[in-house]
Structures are given as structure tokens and as C-alpha cells.
């Protein structure tokens, strides 16, 4: 299946023209080489630190040597103690569940709020559009900080609700503006013809705009999802019931533990070295996103919009 897709995309990029005069020139070949070299370079730059973190997470307690040597640690010397300790941690499952709730609730709320707002901002003929844009932009630029936001959450009674973690960030101005930008790019004639057909704005949004905007909705959904998944600060301030703590709180407690723990003789992690625990916790916390990303990538196919316009 992957093979088929590649072929299709190749056709897009280098169409076999009916007249055989179009063939890759020297400049084209240099271009491809540059792209490939750049990609390989990027791969190396990304991989080395990631790999060093991966091997760190498998480091046995008795490891001696530099980080450089550690990167070449043979897989049969790997220790899974860090992962075992994390999964065995009695707070982990609870925190993971809470995080999942926040993720799902947050993304649903955020998209339900962001899509209409961004769409309305892209309706050019609407009176008051400029005022709306200004109203939306001001809070983005004036980030008034922790306490004013804290007082709000407290006053509307959100304290100690999981929703307090995602609701304050459920409309991110940045995401709204980006999404509007994409809605703006949808050919006006499409919407216009729908209007002439007697569609309401809601119908246009649902039937015309949304099908054309899968990639951006997915992207913005991912942006929201990751920001809620990683949100440490809101959870620290607004969640007091320890049973509602999400994963970032637990991870932070793990990462910062050595700073506070007077009773260093007891560790919740048994044999695993703390560096390995830290590294492993990153991968554990990235799992849902790592799983989600390939699904989102599916919507990233070339010429999505163009194809739709034609069809």
C-alpha cells in the first residue's frame, strides 16, 4: 500500500508528460541531491541526541563510561529496570488515565471552539470582522500571567476539576489565526456557489470547508493535544486532589525528586538509575502522541485541496 502511494506521489511530482521533451535537467538533479543530503543531515542531527536518550533509558545501574560509549551499548546489555519501575509506579496508571481524559476532553472542546471562531473570522463579508480580529488578538499579545488567570479559574469554580487544565487554553489565539489563514485559502468561488445554492454558513462550514481542511484540523488538533498533554503548570496550580494529577505532574516529581528528598535511602524506583528513569519517562509520556502522529500524517497528502476543487 505504501508502495502504491509513493508511485502516486511521484506521478504528481514528476508527471510523465505526453510530449517527451520534459525530463530532469542538471539543475533538477542537483536539487534532488541537495534535498537528499539535507534530509540525511537532518536525520543525523535529530537521531544522535534522541539515540543517546534512548540508550540512556536502557542504561543498567552499574554502567561506567562516557555518554559517547553509552550510545554504543549493546542491546543485550540493556536493562529495562527503568521502564519496569515506571510502569510499576502506583501513581503512573492513575496519572496516565487523568492525562487521557484531559487530552480527549481538551481536544474536543478546543476544536469545537476554535473551528467556528476561525471560520467566522474568515467570512470576509461579515460586518465587524476587523473588530473581531482585534478582539481575538489582544489577549494573545497581553499575556497577563499567572495570578489574574488563577483568580478567574477560582471564581468560576473550576478549581480541582480536570477541565481547569484545558479550558483556560481551549482557544489558543495562535491556532485560531493559523486556522483562519487556511480557511482564507479555500477558493471563494466554492463558498459562493454553495451560498447561491442556498446553503447556510453552518452548512458551508460542515459540507464545504471541513472536508477541505482535514490536514489543518488534524494539525491544530495535534497542537492542542500536545499542549494539553504536556501542560504542567495549570495542573500544578489548579488540581489539588492528588488523585486527579495528570502525567506531567508525576514526571516533574520524578525529575525533580532528587532535589527535595531528604530520605534518599528509599527510592520508589528500586534498582533503576535516576538518569535512566528520566530518559524513560520521556518516552513513556510521548507514547500517545507517537501513536497518533502517523494517523494524522495520513491526511497530509499532496494536493488535497486541488483534487477536491476539481472533483
Amino acid at each position, binding site marked *: 500500500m505504501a508502495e502504491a*502511494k509513493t508511485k502516486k506521489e511521484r506521478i*504528481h511530482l514528476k*508527471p510523465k*508528460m505526453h510530449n517527451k521533451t*520534459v525530463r530532469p535537467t542538471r*539543475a*533538477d538533479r542537483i*536539487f*534532488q541531491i541537495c*534535498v*537528499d543530503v*539535507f*534530509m540525511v543531515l*537532518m*536525520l543525523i542531527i*535529530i*537521531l*544522535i541526541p534522541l539515540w543517546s*536518550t534512548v540508550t*540512556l533509558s536502557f542504561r543498567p545501574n552499574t554502567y561506567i563510561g562516557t*555518554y*559517547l560509549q553509552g550510545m554504543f551499548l549493546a542491546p543485550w546489555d540493556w536493562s529495562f529496570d527503568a521502564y519496569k519501575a515506571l510502569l510499576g509506579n502506583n501513581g503512573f496508571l492513575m496519572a496516565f488515565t487523568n492525562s487521557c481524559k484531559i487530552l480527549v476532553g481538551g481536544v474536543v472542546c478546543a476544536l469545537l471552539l476554535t473551528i*467556528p*471562531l476561525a*471560520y*467566522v473570522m474568515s467570512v470576509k*463579508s*461579515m*460586518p465587524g470582522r*476587523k473588530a473581531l480580529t*482585534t478582539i*481575538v*488578538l489582544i*489577549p494573545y*499579545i*497581553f*499575556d*497577563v500571567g499567572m*495570578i*489574574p*488567570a488563577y483568580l*478567574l479559574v477560582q471564581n468560576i469554580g473550576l478549581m480541582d476539576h480536570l477541565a481547569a487544565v484545558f479550558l*483556560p487554553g481551549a*482557544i489558543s489565539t*495562535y491556532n485560531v489565526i493559523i486556522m483562519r*489563514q487556511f480557511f482564507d485559502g479555500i477558493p471563494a468561488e466554492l463558498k459562493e456557489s454553495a451560498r447561491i445554492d442556498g446553503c*447556510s*454558513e453552518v452548512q458551508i*462550514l460542515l459540507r464545504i470547508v471541513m472536508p477541505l481542511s482535514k490536514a489543518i484540523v488534524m494539525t491544530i488538533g495535534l497542537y492542542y493535544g500536545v499542549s494539553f498533554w*504536556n501542560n504542567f503548570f495549570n495542573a500544578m496550580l489548579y488540581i489539588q486532589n492528588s488523585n486527579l494529577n495528570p502525567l506531567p505532574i508525576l514526571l516533574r516529581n520524578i*525529575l*525533580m525528586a532528587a532535589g527535595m528528598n531528604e530520605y534518599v535511602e528509599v527510592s520508589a524506583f528500586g534498582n533503576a538509575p535516576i538518569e535512566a528513569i528520566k530518559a524513560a519517562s*520521556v518516552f513513556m509520556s*510521548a507514547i500517545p502522541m507517537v501513536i497518533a*502522529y502517523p494517523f494524522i*500524517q495520513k491526511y497530509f497528502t*499532496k*494536493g488535497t*485541496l*486541488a483534487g477536491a476543487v476539481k472533483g
Partner: protein
Amino acid sequence: MKKKDSPELMVPKPNLRREILRHKDVYLLLLIPFVFYIVFKYVPIFNAQIAFKNFRARDGVLGSAWIGLQNFTDFFNSFYFWELLRNTLMYSFGKIIISLPVSIILSIAIYECTHYALRKTVQTLAYLPHFLSWVIMYGVLFALLSPSSGILNDIIKLFGGTPIDFLSSVHAFPWVVLLSDAWKEMGWSAIIFIAALMSIDVSLFEAAMVEGANSWQRVRYITLPAIKPVIVTVLLLKIGTILDAGFNQMYMLYSPQVYSIADIIDTWVYRQGLLNFQFGLATAVGLFKGIIGMILVLVSNKLVSRFNEGSSLF
């Protein structure tokens, strides 16, 4: 602005009331997000009046006494003010100059790459560093850069050089900050550009090819102009928060020997404001940052709308 009017709008100005009525379902659609927006974004701005007050928790926001601009002058007159401003601007401009082009080039490379496996691998791996919190990133950087056990210094020593203490040298530190940020975020910010690239009409390429344009020209005349609106938007949004230079990163990476080049407004506010119950001061600095951001956005928006029609923010 006037030039921008599309033919559609050239028709005699319609009756405003009728226009509003015509769009009533649009306003209805706006209702919930708008109310939400007002509650969650504007109520805190209302609470931000503590910037002009001597905030006492027992008196609440409304009950605290007004003190005028005292909190602002405290900030402006603080010992390190100019240095903080300089460092903050240096890092935020540096990040725009380095990270933005890197992520654009990366997205184009991913788009143009014809090796399926290579493209998928890079696309899938590039965004992973975004998940490393700065606490972890410190560990990664330590493993790479520490003078006596870092990978980079091991390599330097292998070639007979003297190890460099990247994290505590004032010369190397800014580069560590800028490059580590670029590394961590490039794949993540590229996602938005990739999404933009995906909506390019591929028939344009075919047409260009027929006309004999080579790949470089294609990128130059089709790809870049097509994603320019998104680039400009991202740039303008970044300029709006120009005085946020990355608190979490700096807080994890800095140490006393590099304070002179590492302390930024946000780290100062954290130490002086948030850890010291000086919330009026902290809020005042937030407002100050907003005013600067506002001015910069207005100016650059003006410039953008003069030179590039249709890609300005508002």
C-alpha cells in the same frame, strides 16, 4: 487598504442592518466561542489591574489600593533592566532568525524528497524532540556538551582539541540556547508549513514543468509564494510575543556564571515577582511586554499589508 477591495465589495455599500441580518447565522456560530473567549481571555485582563495596585490578597483585586505606575517604575529602575531587555530581544530575534528558516527549509525538503523511506523517517522523527521537556533537554545537552564527559567534547578531545564548557561559557551559551531551541522545535513548527504545502495545487507544478522551469525555480516561484501567507502569519504572531524568549528553556539551562548573557525578563520576573509574592510587579511586566508586542505587531502588520496584499493579520 483601499487597493485591496475585491470587485465584489466595489458594489455600492449595502445597508449595514441588512448585512448583519444576512449574517445572523454566522453570528450565531460565533456565539459560544465568543462568550468563552471573553470569559477566559478578558476576565484575566480585567484582573490585570493589580499591575497598578498594591495587591493584598485579603482585599482582593478590587479592594487593593491603587499605586499608579509604581510597579512599572520598579521594573524599569531595577538594576539589570537594560541587560534583561537586551538578552530577551537577542534570544527572541535569534530564535526567529534561526528557527523559522530552518523549519521552512525542513518542510520544503520533506515535501520535495523523493525517497519515500527517508521522507517518512524524517517526518516522523523530526517532531519527537518537541516532547522532550527542558528538564530532559538539560540532560541531553549535558550528555552532548559537558566538558569532561560530553559527546561533543569527547570528539574534540579525539582530535586533540581542548574541551569547551559550552554551558558555562558566555560565548558559547547563547548558541547553545538558540541551536537547542531550533533543534527541539524545528520539526514541530514544520508541521504547519507541511500542512500548507499539502494544499498547493499540483497542477501548477505540471504547468511549470511544461514551461521548462527547473526544480529550483519551482520552489522559488510556486512553493514559496504559496506558503508565504502562512509564513507571514507565523512571523507576525511571533513578533507579537517578542519579549517571551523562552522561560522554561532558560530557567533550566542558565547558571550564575552565564547570568550576564542568560537572564531574560521572564526569569527575572519569576525570581523577583512570582517567588516573592510581588504579583503586581509580575503583572505589570506582563502588560509592558504586551504593549511592546502590540506596537511591533501594528508596525509590522502595516509593513506587511503594504508589501504583500492579503497576508496581513488584520
